[in-house]
């Protein structure tokens, strides 16, 4: 399974970016290979509108089944993720990526719906 995170940096010690659409990085963890892949999303700041759907498209392309984030996506992005079958977990805004993964594994995050 692949798990994605909205992040402020490219590695396990980076903090979760509480923003969904305008997140600076997307990190994708593959549980089978235990690899953490980083996608630089900083170009998103050039989008005047529609940052949410654009980032949702990237998550779809990454083949993640779960996205872990802070405040949660706006309605547009939430719809795209729902259609793609990606589950959204929120409330990790104060955590580092490694802490967020642990919280997710311990069922401590909130499922967004």
């Amino acid at each position, binding site marked *: 399974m692949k798990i994605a995170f909205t992040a402020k940096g490219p590695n396990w010690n980076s903090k979760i970016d509480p923003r969904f659409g305008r997140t600076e990085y997307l990190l994708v963890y593959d549980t089978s290979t235990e690899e953490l892949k980083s996608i630089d999303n900083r170009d998103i700041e050039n989008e*005047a509108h529609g940052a949410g759907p654009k980032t949702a498209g990237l998550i779809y392309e990454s083949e993640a089944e779960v996205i872990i984030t802070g405040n949660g996506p706006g309605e547009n992005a939430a719809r795209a993720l729902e259609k793609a079958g990606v589950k959204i977990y929120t409330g990790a805004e104060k955590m580092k990526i490694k802490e967020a993964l642990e919280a997710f594994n311990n069922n401590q995050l909130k499922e967004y719906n």
Partner: protein
Amino acid sequence: MKEIVVISGKGGTGKTSLTAALAYLADGEAVIADCDVDAADMHLLLSPDFSHDEDFYSGEVAHIDTDLCTSCGLCMEKCRFSAIHRVNEEYSVNEIDCEGCGYCARICPVNAITMNDQLAGKFYISTTRLDNTLVHARLGAGAENSGKLVAKVKKKARTLAEKESKDYVIADGSPGIGCPVISSLSGADYVVVVTEPSVSGMHDLKRVLELVHKFDIPASCIINKHDINPGMTNEIEDFLRSSNILHLCNIPYTASFTSAITKGITIMENGEDQMLVREAWRKIKEDINSK
């Protein structure tokens, strides 16, 4: 570091005056961000020095190179915004009407149309007369605020707050409920809603709180000019109770707000001791640090 965003649905509720008062009370412990870019008035109260500025671009606008143009007219035919005009076989773009969709540039058979970034305004980082940092922006005529600009202002403010080890970012949020407000709220730790007891004030309060609730951000509310309509004030108080929003205080209709604006100072510096606002700031800090 916590980010506090002050919003209000409708204009004229005193949001900017109160945000500036909080900036005063934070006493050097905050970086201030003016995200109300359509009516960016914070600088009038805080006298920033505009020490750093840069151009800000948002969206695109089409431009026709008349040397390359063969006057085939395809762009004018396809444009849904009537933004392309023809005068004596010469085609040009009306920048006010151009939406920046790029359709014309894509279909021009001789590639005579380019899409250029549109200059939307200026972006500033200043030190204010209260000696805190203010991040602000100014839009040119006809340019619109966007999630992009708000995100940029907030991001800069957060980065500076972290660098300067400040406790808070205090942001004057965008009005309405559209994209700029979503961007104002996104990533915030705490929201203060300023409202007034009028029919439209109540109406707008409900709409913005819907949004705040969806983002799951703790919120509190100040009712300004509470005495101009006591009945409506009661209704708002009931509404806040039933929706679990902390009611910070009721502020009476006072000439002090306007006279402070006139003097270019915050209401805290205008003679009267604004105990209510002081108390509100204490409650905000208490509430935010308990979360």
